[in-house]
């Protein structure tokens, strides 16, 4: 158990500046997820914590120790790799016992730890098998078990579920979460899958181009993204964006786009006043759009034409057009609309997002 501190962490390869001034305080027992598109620096950051990549500048501390110059084996971490990295020439038992054997643990202790971990993961019956006799999910369990037996201060996961099929991925996700609740070991988890990030993380770190974009609890990231990138990256289907011009009419601010015109909620007017006459980006989550009814307050509805209907069963996604804007609305499964049909949509005024066009920061 330990906290992990990343201070002004930088990684430069010859031409590429992969990780830029990363500052992060990972609390003891916390499950933190680094998420972002490929090339965002999340894996490099993790590998620097592991000691597999040299640190160009900055500092990494695990517990009370600065580990910059410690070799990986002395950092008291255990890592789970995307391709499992199981040794094909060893049985499951030997794979799980490997790290302990190399550290010269007494045999009974090794046996006990492997047995305990195998029990937790439900792989007791596989201990005598070789990795090639296992399915992808079983291999993943062994890879996790190999980390558990070490009783490390920190678990490092590098996209551990990426090689599993969708169904298994969901199942293993739940198991990993349960496992963390049980073991309470600090964990750093890297993924490109925002759903994994949201479901697993106590806190989520969104990265892009080597920079941390935002750190926060999953719902905080979802509800209050600090910039347009985070807003678009978190959530599926993604947030709708439309370019709007802020104008003032009759003392009220409106956001006007090529196809629609909506009122700026009074609560947001304070911040947006400074942008009067300017173009800003309006963000609306698909679930914050609905088929307008008489109950919708005036000024928060607009006309659209249905382009595509995607019935998912539990909900229906409507791809609609409004002027030059394409929007996705998530509506009740009972709604019946046809392609090319004109519908009026209402939006939830409390949940609108505005972003500066140049800085892309939330307004």
């Amino acid at each position: 158990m330990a906290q992990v501190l990343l201070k002004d962490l930088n990684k430069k390869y010859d031409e590429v500046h992969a990780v830029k001034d990363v500052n992060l305080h990972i609390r003891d027992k916390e499950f933190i997820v680094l998420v972002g598109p490929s090339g965002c620096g999340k894996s490099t950051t993790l590998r620097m914590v592991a000691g597999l990549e040299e640190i160009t500048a900055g500092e990494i501390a695990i517990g009370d120790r600065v580990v910059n110059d410690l070799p990986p084996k002395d950092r008291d971490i255990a890592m789970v790799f995307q391709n499992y990295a199981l040794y094909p020439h060893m049985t499951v038992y030997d794979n799980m016992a490997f790290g302990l054997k190399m550290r010269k643990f007494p045999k009974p202790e090794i046996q006990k730890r492997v047995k305990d971990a195998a029990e937790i993961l439900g792989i007791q019956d596989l201990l005598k098998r070789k990795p090639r006799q296992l399915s992808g999910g079983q291999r993943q369990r062994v890879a996790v078990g190999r980390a558990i037996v070490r009783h490390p201060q920190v678990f490092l996961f590098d996209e551990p579920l990426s090689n599993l099929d969708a169904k298994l991925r969901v199942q293993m996700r739940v198991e990993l979460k349960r496992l963390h609740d049980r073991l309470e070991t600090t964990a750093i988890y890297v993924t490109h899958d925002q759903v994994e990030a949201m479901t697993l993380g106590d806190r989520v770190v969104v990265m892009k181009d080597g920079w941390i974009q935002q750190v926060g609890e999953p719902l905080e990231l979802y509800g209050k993204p600090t910039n347009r990138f985070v807003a678009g990256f978190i959530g599926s289907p993604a947030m709708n964006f439309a370019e709007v011009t802020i104008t003032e009419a009759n003392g009220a601010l409106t956001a006007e786009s090529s196809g629609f015109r909506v009122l700026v909620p009074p609560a947001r007017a304070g911040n947006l006043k400074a942008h009067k006459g300017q173009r800003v980006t309006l963000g609306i989550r698909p679930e914050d759009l609905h088929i307008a009814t008489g109950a919708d307050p005036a000024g928060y509805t607009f006309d659209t034409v249905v382009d595509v209907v995607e019935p998912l069963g539990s909900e229906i996604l409507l791809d609609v057009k409004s002027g030059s804007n394409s929007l996705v609305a998530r509506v009740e499964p009972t709604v019946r609309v046809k392609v090319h049909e004109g519908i009026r949509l209402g939006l939830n005024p409390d949940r609108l997002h505005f972003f500066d066009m140049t800085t892309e920061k939330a307004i």
Partner: protein
Amino acid sequence: MVTAYLLLAPATILLLGVLAYPVGWEAWISLTDLSPLNVRGPRFVGLQNYRAMLAEPFFWRAVAVTAVYFAVTTAAKLALGLAMALLLLRPSRLRPLVFLAVFLPWAYPGGVSVVAWYWMLNPPLITSYSVLAGSMKYAVDGLLGGGAWAFLSVALFNVWRGGSFTAVFLLAGLNAIPTELFEYAALETHTAWQQLRHVTLPLLRPFLALAVFLSFTTAFADLANVWMLTGGRVIFPVIGTYAYWLGIRNGAIGEAAAWSLSLVPLLAAALVGLFRWFDPREERTA
């Protein structure tokens, strides 16, 4: 069905023509007294050639020398090759130099390098170096017995040339192993030796087995290099050179065929053993 056999035919004919026919012919003449000195033509003599061979002390000596030659050169080549392959695996400023060192002996024409080695070990001109080379020869021969210097020089040449091949071969093997397996080892092992013994060597096993087998066949079939380096003298014969002596110099072609075929059971056993080793049954039936 017919199409299947037709499609197999070219490969079958090639194998029969190139492999089965010469080997079969050699097996046949090993049972005859074929020799250019025999004007009446070859006569079937049964196992006579083999009996003569087994009764010949020279044969057993040649077998022993060949076996030692194989063991010594293989061990040296594997050690050297592995060291060079591991050096080449990690990027460093020295890499181009090591690459050059590794590829040069292998890329250089065999005949030319043999002559260079021959002159190095038996200097053709009288210089202070030739005195040194001469005293080295006497020192080695005096210590290990007559012919030891010749043996050593042949082994050295084999290692020099074969080591580079082994290095390239094992480097390909190392590159075929997923990097995470080494990264995991870096996280979990405490010494370089642990990593070599528990991770690198076992993962390289198929490649090591094949390298041993290639070394086996080259050592046992080695004729040209031994012949050229020793100037064709049978001071310290391997089976190959002795068979050559018998067949070409003495004209006892039938007997020479028996000698060269004596290697077949050994090679077959080695092949089976090595394949077992790198592809064990319990892993195959997984």
